[in-house]
């Protein structure tokens, strides 16, 4: 494989990495920080990158691990996390500009309320359009486990939609 170039091989992944980090941390500033750290870490290992099958998958793995790490730390840090989560829709993130729509905000909240292992798998499959194999590589789990998590995540979303439909908001 040819030598890895930062501008052409790593930098264009910024949005995918950002979306994944944001899905896990639910904080745009932190997500940006994670992307930056991911890129620098990957770039420092550039000599070994040519041995990899996919630089993208590797970047996503590094990004996901960093994001999970920070998310866990944050969760362990305070009891007020739940409160913080409820406040979140008021904070403006770049996505909020895209989905000003109140209905979109509701779906976003449904996504945000999912456990982190469901959120990440839905992000990679339904938003990034990755195959089960790719997701299993990124997340370091079997394809079966990916499917189980995705199934549970989608079922939970479906239940929530049914709740909304039956009882309103």
């Amino acid at each position, binding site marked *: 494989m040819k030598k890895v170039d*930062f*501008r052409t091989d790593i*930098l264009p992944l*910024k*949005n995918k990495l*950002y*979306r994944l980090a*944001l899905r896990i941390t639910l904080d745009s500033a932190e997500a*940006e920080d994670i*992307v*930056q750290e991911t*890129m*620098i870490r990957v*770039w420092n290992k550039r000599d070994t990158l040519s041995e990899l099958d996919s630089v993208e998958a590797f970047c996503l793995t590094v990004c996901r691990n960093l994001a999970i790490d920070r998310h866990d730390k944050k969760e362990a840090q305070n009891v007020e996390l739940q409160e913080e989560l409820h406040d979140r829709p008021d904070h403006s993130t*770049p*996505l909020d500009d*895209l*989905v000003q729509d109140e*209905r*979109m905000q*509701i*779906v*976003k909240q449904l*996504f945000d309320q999912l456990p982190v292992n469901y959120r990440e798998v839905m992000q990679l*499959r*339904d*938003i*990034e*359009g990755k*195959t089960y194999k790719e997701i299993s590589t990124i997340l370091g789990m079997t394809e079966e486990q990916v*499917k189980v998590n*995705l*199934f549970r995540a*989608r*079922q939970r*979303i*479906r239940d929530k*939609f*049914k709740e*909304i*439909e039956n009882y309103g908001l």
Partner: protein
Amino acid sequence: MDYKYIEQLLDRYFLCQTSLEEEEILRSFFRQEEIPAQLLPYRDLFRYEKAAQKQELGEDFDAKVLAMVNQPVVKARRVRLSERFRPFMKAAALVAIVLTIGNAAQQSFSKKTDPIVRPSVVYTETEPHADVASDGISKVDSIAQPEVQEVVTPD
């Protein structure tokens, strides 16, 4: 219109039996304006999935991360105290040289300009010569100007 295919796809979607292409068909379908009532509840889900793909980082991020990556790696280096102060010593030495040269120049200039600087010295030194010169001039003047004698002629 028959929406059986879409309904079937939707069921399979929730059972994780759809392929990536089929999931894309669902997203495209829910992007249309006219959605039958029974499918309407799921419209927002697929619209959101589509909208969330456009979430991006700005250009300023590129500049920031490029600047960080292009920077040479800075490594910690042990520096001895004498090495640490070497630039100051250099500066001090330079100042000393400039002062020495400046002082020397000042002295040589002040010697040359001394008489001019102190007019009193000039006066006392030149006064006797000036007196002699002045006497000489007055003597010459008296010789050069003969006395005009008034001649009174009788009528």
